[in-house]
């Protein structure tokens, strides 16, 4: 499915990452990443395993602390926020974990109710139920409402995890490998869902992946991490021009030289 062109307000960056550096002991993972994400835009961040893609979004949500650089989200400097302010900011950001991270001991309904019950204390039981039904319909899995996560397939778990990120209607969604470990058909369904979410919720997204089909289908802009920083950035076609050697190593494997 070809990505539909949506209006992106390029005057209004909602994420501003500047000269971001992160190391673990002697291992320098990020060496100076800078980029802006605009309202309504999807940026896909590609990179080899261990290149720091997931670290980047964990830094953005405040799960990790950078060594240098700054991350400004919705006008707030993430590193300078106190616990309460960080929690308030997190309510505006959805995060899809690579392994879905659904709570094993809760049903699908309880998984979806969890962020609502804890963060929207003024909602009634009926309103919570309505919100749950609505997001489940959006991801096409209403029938799983009373099932446990262990009873779901990998693709269904991913969709439920997306539903959980959507239930608080975030302005920004961070996807960590949304199609990892899924078959090609389910991958396409997830890609379509990401595009539907962008369109319906007007959310901006950072999509971490090494799946080029996902990148091509969902990204308004693509960036490739090389040596800890964005080596190439632009449209899918720009990044994968023949002369971009590192980018083409990716391309050749994913599309078997059918450029």
């Amino acid at each position, binding site marked *: 499915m070809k990505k539909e062109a949506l209006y992106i307000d390029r005057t209004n960056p909602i994420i501003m990452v500047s000269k971001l550096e992160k190391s*673990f002991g002697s291992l320098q993972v990020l060496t100076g990443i800078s980029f802006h994400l605009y309202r309504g835009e999807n940026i896909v961040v590609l990179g080899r395993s261990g290149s720091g893609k997931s*670290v980047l979004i*964990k830094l953005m*949500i*405040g*799960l*990790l*602390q950078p*060594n240098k650089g700054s991350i400004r989200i919705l006008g707030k400097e993430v*590193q300078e926020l106190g616990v309460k302010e960080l*929690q*308030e900011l*997190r*309510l505006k*950001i959805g*995060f899809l*974990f*690579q*392994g879905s*991270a*659904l*709570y*094993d*001991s809760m049903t699908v309904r309880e998984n979806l109710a*969890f*962020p609502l019950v*804890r*963060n929207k204390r003024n909602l009634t039981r009926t309103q919570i139920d309505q919100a749950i039904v609505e997001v489940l319909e959006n991801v096409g899995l209403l029938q799983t409402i009373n099932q446990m996560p262990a009873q779901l397939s990998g693709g269904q778990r991913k969709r439920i995890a997306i539903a*959980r990120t959507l239930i*608080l209607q975030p302005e920004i969604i961070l996807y960590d490998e949304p199609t990892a470990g899924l078959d090609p058909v389910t991958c396409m369904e997830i890609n379509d869902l990401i595009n539907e979410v962008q369109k319906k919720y007007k959310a901006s997204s950072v999509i971490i992946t090494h799946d080029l089909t996902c990148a091509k289908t969902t990204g308004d802009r693509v960036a490739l991490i090389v040596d800890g920083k964005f080596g190439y950035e632009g449209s899918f076609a720009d990044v994968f021009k023949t002369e971009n050697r590192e980018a083409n190593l990716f391309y050749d494997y994913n599309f078997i030289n059918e450029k």
Partner: protein
Amino acid sequence: MEDPKNNKMNDAPSVNFFTNIYDIYRFILRFFREVFVPPFEFKEIVKQCYDVGYRSLALVTLTGFIIGIVFTKQSRPPLAEFGATSWLPGLISIAIIRALAPLITALISAGKVGSNIGAELGSMKETEQIDAMEVSATNPFKYLVVSRIIATTTMVPILSLYMGLIGLIGAYLNIHQNESTSFMGFFQHGFINISFLDVFSSLIKSIVFGFTIGVTGCFQGYYASKGTEGVGKAANAAVVISMFLVFIEEMLIVQIVNAMRPA
């Protein structure tokens, strides 16, 4: 270490022994910092109390009953040699209330509850469920750790008192088989030998044991690492370390209580 913005990719407890002690100290400090600050996770605390307390009842009942019977059976012959079997109720009551009930309950809880907490939190850590809680603006430490430590700290003493009672009933049944001691007579005789300090120290001991089991299980699980192997290790360490600490604490508290006992 508990700081969500920490600088380590892997939150595993430090290998260095002293750093590890410092990490545990900070973990306990964080518990006390957060336990009195709202929001209070009442629903989760009740659920954990149910899991720790109610779900251990059958095991505690059976163990307490058997210990009462076996201890009485083993104590009878030496006392009988001196014609002192009338001391049995007093001896058994002292042994069960002062030492056996809190210690055995703690060991059972360390095995059943401690391993469960270690494995559950470890698995949640490994599958990023704890991070998921954090990014959905929930304090996972308060929701998962504080509630579990409160549950073990309150339920282990209750289970211990219950086990003491069941143990005494077991002891009575054994005595009743051999002698015509009445139920009331047995308990009157037994309780004459038990002072307030015995019951109080037993309760304090159980509170300390419960807290230790909760902290150890939560610490091992919350900072589990190295995938599924780490989950197994967390569960195992939760049991081994809690049992070790329970014995050390038992020894220390006995010394303190004995020093407080009137000569």
